[in-house]
């Protein structure tokens, strides 16, 4: 009976510990994500500016996704376990906020948070931020799991993942009919939907690429690149096939029929692009990661 009570109390204590981590996360914004300072200085009003609300809450959703991957194992003692969890959580918070800051500086370099969200209430900008924040959270959760409590490997994998993630985001013009910067200024929701599907699809492929056995970091890095290259070959095939099988009008046909990227048509176009890309990425991940052909060995 006492043991049950002990465990119950411990779980309550862990709730308190997680709240402490969240409190730390809030104030970590001051160091690792300076643009977010304004949202933290006073009590946040979710009603006045929905785009600001989405921009702010997407980071809360992101950190909860990352914290969901934290583990506590009662191997040695409670303080050692908690210390390990605290260190990993602190480093993860720093990496997550730095990743958001980096991606915003690279992908959204032409846009400023205060202009787009506070002044212009650009909801499209916030939806793109939501997709980016969720994607980064999923990616960091994966690399924390792969690093297996090694801070050096965690840092190396983070750098590596950021380079690959940054590179994949630059491929958007090859896929979409939307001009990213131009349409984002015009608060185009179609662009936001298309970009969100594109980013989330890429994240699925990237997280699975990192989810491999690793004994040697060089071989692991090469295997990641090869899996991503293979995925980038297969995704376009699935997109074309999905268009053909389900008789969805392609970009060329839409343009020929005189459809332009205006607020009426663009939502449908963005939804199509986003959902088809996400579906193609999920199907590709099945082909690349679930069909295991490495067991074909000679002389068998």
């Amino acid at each position: 009976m006492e043991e049950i009570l002990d465990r119950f109390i411990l779980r309550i204590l862990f709730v308190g510990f997680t709240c402490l981590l969240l409190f730390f996360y809030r104030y970590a914004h001051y160091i690792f994500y300076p643009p977010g300072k304004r949202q933290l200085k006073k009590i946040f009003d979710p009603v006045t500016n929905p785009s600001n609300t989405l921009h702010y809450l997407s980071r809360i959703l992101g950190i909860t996704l990352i914290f969901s991957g934290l583990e506590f194992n009662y191997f040695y003692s409670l303080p050692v376990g908690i210390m390990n969890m605290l260190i990993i959580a602190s480093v993860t918070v720093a990496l997550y906020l730095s990743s958001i800051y980096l991606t915003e500086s690279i992908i959204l370099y032409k846009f400023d948070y205060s202009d787009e969200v506070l002044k212009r209430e650009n909801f499209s900008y916030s939806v793109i931020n939501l997709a980016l924040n969720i994607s980064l959270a999923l990616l960091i959760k994966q690399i924390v799991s792969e690093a297996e409590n090694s801070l050096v490997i965690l840092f190396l994998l983070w750098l590596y993942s950021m380079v690959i993630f940054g590179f994949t985001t630059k491929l958007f013009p090859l896929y979409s009919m939307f001009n990213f910067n131009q349409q984002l200024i015009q608060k185009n929701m179609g662009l936001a939907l298309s970009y969100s599907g594109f980013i989330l699809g890429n994240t699925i492929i990237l997280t699975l690429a990192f989810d491999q056995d690793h004994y040697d970091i060089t071989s692991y890095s090469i295997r990641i690149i090869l899996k991503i290259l293979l995925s980038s070959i297969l995704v376009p095939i699935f997109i074309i096939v999905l268009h053909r099988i389900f008789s969805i009008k392609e970009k060329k046909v839409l343009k020929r029929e005189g459809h332009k990227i205006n607020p009426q048509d663009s939502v449908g176009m963005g939804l199509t692009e986003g959902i088809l890309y996400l579906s193609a990425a999920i199907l590709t991940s099945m082909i690349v990661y679930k069909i295991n052909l490495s067991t074909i060995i000679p002389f068998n």
Partner: protein
Amino acid sequence: MNKTFFYSALVVAYLALSKTFSPDNSGVEYVRRTQDLEKIIKRVPAEAILLQTQSKGFLIKTYYQRYKIVYGFHPPREIVVRTKRSFADYSSNFQGMSLFRKRVGGTVETTPLPPGSLFIGNRQFGRWIFKDNDYSWAFYRAYQGFPRLFGWFGFNPTRSFFKKLLEFEKKGVPFHGENNDFGKNGTITAKFIKNTSNKDGLNSVRVRTLFNEYLKLNYTY
């Protein structure tokens, strides 16, 4: 046009990188020529007998070879190596033969000779006995298993065989035995390879057997 070019470049880059790094074969050594076996075979005296050559892949092929390494004073082992096409083609004529020999002192010989050539005539491992009007080689009791390892199947090396062996070795010319017993078309090698090939692999499982097993497992009460 740009997209087609980009896509083609992507496919080529993927295939080239996969072929170059071959992450699935990271534990398999690459052998360009027979001498390269020296980096795998560390102990002496040792002899490498080529058992099988195989290519895998539809358009881009990878060549593999299976060798049996017979050591003088250690248990034998089998190794699988990757190789290039020209070497695979060249050495396939010498299947079942000794392609690499490393003597005490580190001297390496790579002339293709019948299996066991390194040990014939070496007084550490056996002696010549007079039988049927000729001298034939017999291993000591401790090395009685060697003829089985070499796949001799009753073959007894004679003095005349040994002399020819030394002659060919000196000239650096491949020797297939006095009656073409060894090598791709050798009669003794044919028996040896038949005996060593892996017939219990997954490829030999019949679909009908699998289906019957499936039915028995799932629908029999």
